[in-house]
């Protein structure tokens, strides 16, 4: 009797309410996330293309064929270069600008802080498609606001989205505008978690505002800084909708990102095998850069 009830209790603990409560969400995530991810890995070793879409029997295993093809695809290297350009320049600008704005908003003398915070955060909640539509007109060569501004300073108009040197900076500027509010909020939370008594002690020791920033704010904000850096970078590596909507990857592929290349290969030309391999290359790059950043964080934090 006791053995039976002990066994019942064991069963209940392992497959009781908790099991049934977690089951629906876990099944959905397994079916619609983990299964596709593993399938993508499998697909990346096949020649899945538009013909296979019609007749599954023509599917062939090609080993690392897709990955080797990627290494010899000039379009991939161009997209990789563009993506790194966007992540390094755009990502750094996003982080630095949001930190600067967070410091401003958090400044002790600021009135109506909530109002400023709300206004600055507005671009984050906007729909990217709508924003891209608006910015395409702001960047218009003849009647866009940016060229009008340049004209006021006596400068020549720029074909923002049509010039190979300016298209990516234009997309970066829009991305910074759209995203800085997000990081700003996280930085503000980080700044507010630094105890005020540290600053008071520093002031008693005669530290000026730069010294306070350098020796209190920066070191204590470092974990926040690292977190913001990692999530910004992960998000920016997946660049897709901005070039898709603004430039279609042009001019002459100078805003083609890895995400857009993958989309074109997969959903435009139906080269699902090749596109899956691209997706995994992108994933591995993101993973490596994340690990490097985490490693750097560990080294800096344990430094005496």
């Amino acid at each position, binding site marked *: 009797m006791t053995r039976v009830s002990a066994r019942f209790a064991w069963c209940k603990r392992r497959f009781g309410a908790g099991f049934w409560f977690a089951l629906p969400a876990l099944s959905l995530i397994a079916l619609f996330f983990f299964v596709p991810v593993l399938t993508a890995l499998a697909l990346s070793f096949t020649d899945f293309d538009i013909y296979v879409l019609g007749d599954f029997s023509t599917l062939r295993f090609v080993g690392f064929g897709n990955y080797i093809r990627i290494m010899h695809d000039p379009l991939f290297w161009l997209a990789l270069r563009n993506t790194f350009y966007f992540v390094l320049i755009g990502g750094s600008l996003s982080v630095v600008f949001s930190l600067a704005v967070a410091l401003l908003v958090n400044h002790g003398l600021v009135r109506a802080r909530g109002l400023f915070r*709300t206004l600055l955060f*507005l671009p984050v909640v*906007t729909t990217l498609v709508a924003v891209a539509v608006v910015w395409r007109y702001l960047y218009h060569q003849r009647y866009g606001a940016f060229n009008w501004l340049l004209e006021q300073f006596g400068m020549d108009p720029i074909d923002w989205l049509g010039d190979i040197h300016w298209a990516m900076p234009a997309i970066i500027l829009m991305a910074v505008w759209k995203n800085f509010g997000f990081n700003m909020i996280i930085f503000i939370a980080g700044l507010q978690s630094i105890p005020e008594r540290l600053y008071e002690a520093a002031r008693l020791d005669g530290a000026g505002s730069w010294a306070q920033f350098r020796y209190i704010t920066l070191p204590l904000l470092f974990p926040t800084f690292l977190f913001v850096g990692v999530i910004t970078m992960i998000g920016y590596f997946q660049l897709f909708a901005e070039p898709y909507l603004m430039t279609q990857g042009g001019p002459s592929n100078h805003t083609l990102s890895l995400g857009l290349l993958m989309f074109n290969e997969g959903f435009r030309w139906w080269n699902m095998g090749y596109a899956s391999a691209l997706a995994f290359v992108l994933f591995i790059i993101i993973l490596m850069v994340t690990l490097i950043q985490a490693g750097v964080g560990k080294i800096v934090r344990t430094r005496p």
Partner: protein
Amino acid sequence: MNLKKLFAGIAVHAALVVVAFFATGPLLWMLSASLMPDMEATRMPPRLWPETINPAHYLRLFSQLNLLRYMGNSFILAIAVTVLSLLFNSLAGYAFAKLHFAGRTAIFRGLMAAMVIPGQVAMLPLFLMLREMGLVNTYLGVIVPGMASIFGIFLIRQYARSIPDALLDAARIDGACEWRIYWSLVLPLCRPILVTMAVFSFMGSWNDFMWPLIILTDDSLYTLPVALASLMGEHAQDVELMMAGAVITLLPVMLVFLSLQRFYIQGLILGSLKG
């Protein structure tokens, strides 16, 4: 000293006003251009405000270009995703926080590790799977990947951990079944985080572009962002009309954000501090 403080205050506020103008300028121009008559928005020098308020573009979007239909689609999908994901994520999040089941810790660690996998990796096979299931070009196909999320489960778990075990045990001793404890005790206690997640998932679903673009081929099922992108293809020259379309696409999320921003920002901070 006070004079120095005064100047510092003025400088900080001036800088903030400039940044606030940078942030809101494009949105204000969008609103103003959407109310201008044809060709006024492209005139040089640019006008900041319409000479006369002209609602014609809004009327045209709703009467000729079917925008009401797309708006309806967006609302249905966003509400469906929000309700379903709240239900599934809260059940699972509560289970991970307070209940015991086989493999709980290992599964949770696995989920956390999987957060680094970008969603784009899953998209291609997911499309093929939904095609086999006959879900391409259906509402269900759009909401299926959003019905449960690792991040949602994580947020609820963090919150539900603060519920005292004694409270749950007391309810059990009183004879309440597990479902009843979840429904009438846990859910009300988790209300702040549930509102936060509702705002997140409504806005995420409303703003989503890539997945509906992939899964919806039939014009009549388009969501507002997909419809706006396709409208851009045909009406790129009608600046004022496109701006009106952009305003209509943005307005619902803006209103949701402005009315519930406290919850949105709290959730954002919660997700980042624990993450």
